[in-house]
Every structure is written in structure tokens, then in C-alpha cells.
């Protein structure tokens, strides 16, 4: 499926082969295959109920897959637990924001550092120099990340008191705190106004520049088309098209999936 790829061939960071997922009799995903290259922004679109979030949940270990194969940086993922996935280097955000609502913004990000830090019970209880140094590093990194996503001045506010757009940014900062190689964002622009979307786009661009590969589910077609290097379209749990945004927009199968048969205008 690399017929229309504009980016020069790079090593693939995530390779999904024939993945399927059923819930009882409902086939949520079937024969889904794609491959994300190191350093690209990969879009995942499709009508409601197409299985985008299910695919996210399978990729991040929340649901076990029923069939197929997933390779992350060349190594197969055998239905690992979500925390293992995070440790391997895939971080995510949630469609319906799942911050630690009653904790401050900076605490949220500090929790994201958990997987990359070591202090155990004895370190905590004895307050060894190593533990104290680690604590300082955690806090410093958390503040840096808040700065990075542009909410440095809101560090001490409770997550739930942040504006919707800032909550989305905080979720990204928390995910980045786990030092991911692949960052999976589930509708990062949902509920954002036009200005916030422009800022989000700049943020995602700089994340990519800093060497993190991005996988994005997004409904805002303009954002997807402007931002993503390649796009995968899901419909009824199957991939119906993959390619560069411009080609996808003209793909009759995509138009049909979004608008039904008989329409000629592309989405967006």
C-alpha cells in the first residue's frame, strides 16, 4: 500500500498486519493492515463507529486482539498490558479526556514520568540522595513539558479547572512525559475553536520535529489533510483506503463511506 507515498522510505515504527477484533458477534475490526513510518504523522479517519477507537485500544493494550500481528519497532506485541505498551514507547490520549481531574496539571505530568523513573518503597521511605535527585528531575521535566505544550502558567491549577483546549494539551504533555516513540492521539482537536486548532497543529508539528511519530484520529478533515503525511480510512472495521491526503480525498470508496453512494464531492 505504498503506491502513493511521498515521504522517502523510512523504517516502519509500527506494523499492523491483518488485525481483527470481535465483541461477541460484532466484528469491530477485520483484516486491518497498515504501517507507520518513523517520524511521520499518520492519520486515521472514518465515519462514526468505523472502529478507530477500537483500533487505538487494541494498539495500546486495552483490548487484546483476536487475530493478526502488531510489530512495534520490529518486535511483535503479544497482547501486552497497557502499562507494558507505555513502557515500550507508545503513549496515548483519550477521546473523552481522561486526566487525573482532581490533581494539579503538574502532578498529572509527573505521574506520566512514573514509567521512566525507578524509586521504590525504600527509596521513598529513606529519601536517599538518588531518590531526591530523581524527584527533582521529575518535577523539572514536568514543568518543561507544560511549557512545551504552552500551559506553563497553569501548572498549579487542577486539571478539571482547565479549559477544554488546555485539558487536551495537558493530556498530550502527560503522554509525552512517558518518553514515547509513537504518540497516539484520539481526536485531539475535538471541541477546540479555530485558534486552538491552529495552535494544536503547530504543537503537533513540533512534536514530530522532536522525533516522535504521531498517529492521529481526527474528525476535522481539514486538519487531517493539512497535517498528516498519510491517512488510513476505516469503515465498518476494515481499511478501505490508504495514502496521501490528496489521493484519499478523491478516492471514490472514501467518498462513498462518508457521504453514501451517488455523491461526487469529496469530503472537506
Amino acid at each position: 500500500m505504498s503506491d502513493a507515498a511521498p515521504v522517502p522510505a523510512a523504517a516502519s515504527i509500527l506494523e499492523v498486519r491483518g488485525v481483527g477484533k470481535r465483541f461477541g458477534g460484532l466484528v469491530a475490526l477485520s483484516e486491518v493492515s497498515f504501517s507507520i513510518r518513523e517520524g511521520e504523522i499518520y492519520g486515521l479517519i472514518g465515519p462514526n463507529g468505523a472502529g478507530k477507537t477500537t483500533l487505538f485500544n487494541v494498539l495500546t493494550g486495552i483490548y487484546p486482539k483476536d487475530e493478526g500481528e502488531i510489530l512495534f519497532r520490529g518486535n511483535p506485541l503479544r497482547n501486552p498490558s497497557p502499562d507494558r505498551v507505555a513502557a515500550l514507547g507508545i503513549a496515548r490520549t483519550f477521546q473523552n479526556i481522561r486526566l487525573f481531574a482532581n490533581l494539579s496539571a503538574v502532578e498529572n505530568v509527573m505521574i506520566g514520568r512514573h514509567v521512566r523513573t525507578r524509586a521504590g518503597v525504600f527509596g521513598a521511605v529513606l529519601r536517599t540522595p538518588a531518590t531526591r535527585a530523581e524527584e527533582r528531575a521529575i518535577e523539572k521535566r514536568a514543568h518543561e513539558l507544560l511549557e512545551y505544550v504552552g500551559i506553563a502558567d497553569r501548572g498549579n491549577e487542577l486539571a478539571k479547572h482547565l479549559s477544554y483546549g488546555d485539558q487536551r494539551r495537558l493530556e498530550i504533555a502527560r503522554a509525552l512525559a512517558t518518553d514515547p516513540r509513537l504518540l497516539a492521539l484520539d481526536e485531539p482537536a475535538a471541541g477546540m475553536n479555530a485558534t486552538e486548532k491552529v495552535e494544536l497543529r503547530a504543537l503537533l508539528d513540533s512534536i514530530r520535529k522532536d522525533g516522535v511519530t504521531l498517529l492521529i484520529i481526527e474528525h476535522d478533515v481539514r486538519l487531517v489533510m493539512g497535517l498528516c503525511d498519510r491517512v488510513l480510512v476505516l469503515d465498518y472495521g476494515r481499511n478501505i483506503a490508504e495514502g496521501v491526503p490528496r489521493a484519499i480525498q478523491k478516492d471514490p470508496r472514501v467518498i462513498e463511506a462518508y457521504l453514501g453512494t451517488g455523491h461526487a464531492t469529496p469530503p472537506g
Partner: protein
Amino acid sequence: MDLRRHPQARWIGLALVAVALLALPFVLAMAGTAWVRITNLAILFVMLSLGLNIVVGFAGLLDLGYIAFYAVGAYVYALLASPHFNIHWPWWAILPIGAAVACLFGVLLGTPTLKLRGDYLAIVTLGFGEIVRIFLNNLSEPFNLTNGPKGLTTIDSIKFAGLDFANSTRVGDFAVSGTIKYYYFLLAVMVLVIILNLRLQNSRIGRAWEAIREDELAARAMGINTRNMKLLAFAMGASFGGVAGGMFSAIQGFISPESFILTESVMVLAMVVLGGMGNIWGVVLGAVLLSFVPEILRYTVEPVQRMVFGRSIIDPEVIRMLLFGLAMVVMMLFRPAGILPSAVRKRELARPTE
């Protein structure tokens, strides 16, 4: 006054509290040794509440069988320091063993309950507490391990630096009773337990527990191994219970399964909830209040009735629990997050404004 900006004020305050705590048993002894003994039990309950607070307050896992770990610690001490098996190990060896065995029981309870929450977790932990008690009651046959409902007697007291804590010591013209010596011992252990809890709370581990309590799925997605962290909470909480149990054994010199009934679990949970789940100082306050108030009522309800009505109308024991229950209900209505709520817990319980 903001104590953070006045470190001297903080130290002076701390020194005053220390002096008050050191002088306390002698003041109480004037009112009767019974009050020193009540204080000692209160300190044990502070430790128990702090242990339970790790599970309930920090990690957000309900545990209705917590007293089982107290029982385990108490029986380990009694079995290793009594004529029952004629083993008489020193306390400093047994207390850590008791903590370790209780820790093991904590993991034993934690493992099957990892996927449970709320009501289901409550039922399983409640069952666990009862199972431990029933075992203690019945493990007298075929091999007499626990001596059944008769319990274990003449348990060794704590001996430290040539002092036997069972007897009083003369210091000059002054007699320091065993109860007072135990008070200082318990106080020292309690301070240690409080420091351990404060440090645990403000650590990577404490944050992980907080994350699990707030949103378990998000915590997992952020790379927190929720299974290990929950087991750690159960294990840590249980160890504190085990240490408290060992000291209970030593102080009482006699234990039986009757000391470890469900009501005790509920009492400890009430201390945690009333004081303020998740806030260490709140939990300490809750334990102290719930230890003393029933005792104070025991001694005051009868005379007050005589004064007001000229005779005793309601049995003091009944009215004591009645007032106690009423206080709890009122408390929970007006301060649902506890007397000294943890900042985060308070927010969790507050009505959403959106």
C-alpha cells in the same frame, strides 16, 4: 500564619507538641492508669488507621477485613513469645517477622481482588477478615496452633535496655509504671509510622496510588503497573497492621480471636473516613477521637443522667453507641470528606459544578 514562611514557628510548634506528648502519660496517670492504657490503645489504633489509610485513602481500595492483619501480627507475636510452644524470642526479632507475615497475608488478599472494585471488593475483604478470625478460632485441632477461642495467655512483655515493660521501674523517688513505658515505646513507633506514611505519600509510589484512585485505566495507559501498585498498597497497609498487632499482643499479654471481630475492622475504617481519607493528620485525629470519645462517654453518660433525671434511665453502654452513631451520621452529612479532609479527596467528593 503560614508555617512554610516561618520555619522557626514550625519548629517551636513541633517542640511544644513533643513536650506535651512526653508529659501526657504522667498527667493522665493522675486521672487513673486506665487512661494511660486507653491512650496506648488509641496509639495502636492510630497505627492501624494509618495502615488502612494506605489501602483506602491512598490507593482507593475498600478493605473491610483489615483487622485480620492486626490479628496475624498479634498471633505471630504470641506464638513466638509465649509458653504455648515454649518459644521466647525477643520483640525486636518478632515484630519484623509479624510485619512480614502480615505483608504476605496482604498479598494473599490482594491477589484475588485485583480486578474488583467497590461493592465486590468490600464483600471479598469482609469475607477475608472473617476467614482469618474463624481459622484462629478453630486451629486448635488436630494440631493446636492457636489454642482456639481460649486464646493465648502469658505472652512475653517487651524488654528493652534492661527494662521489663511489664513492671514499673523506680527512677529516683518516682515509679514509672509499665503502662507508661509502653506509652513511650508506642509513641516512638507511631512517630516512625507517621514519617513513613508522609514520605510514601509524597513519592513516586504515592503518586502512582493517587493516579490509580483517580482513574485506573488512565493510570495503566501512563505506564503504571496497577497490579503491582495495588499489591504494594495491600502489602504495606498489612505490614503496619502486623506491627500494631504484635505490640498489642505484648501489651495485653493475652489475645483471643474475640479481639479481631468485624466490628473492629469497621471501627478502624470509621476512623479513617471520619478523620479524612488520604490525609495522614486527619486519619491520626480520627483514630484519637474515636478511641477516646466512647471512653469519655462511658465515664460521663451515667453521672450526667443522674444529675439531670436523678436516676439512670438508659444503660450507658446503649446510649454511648447511640451518641456515637449519631455523631458519625452528622459528621458525614456536614463534612463528608472527613474532619481534616485530604485536598484531593475533598475535590473528589464535591458535587461537580459543571
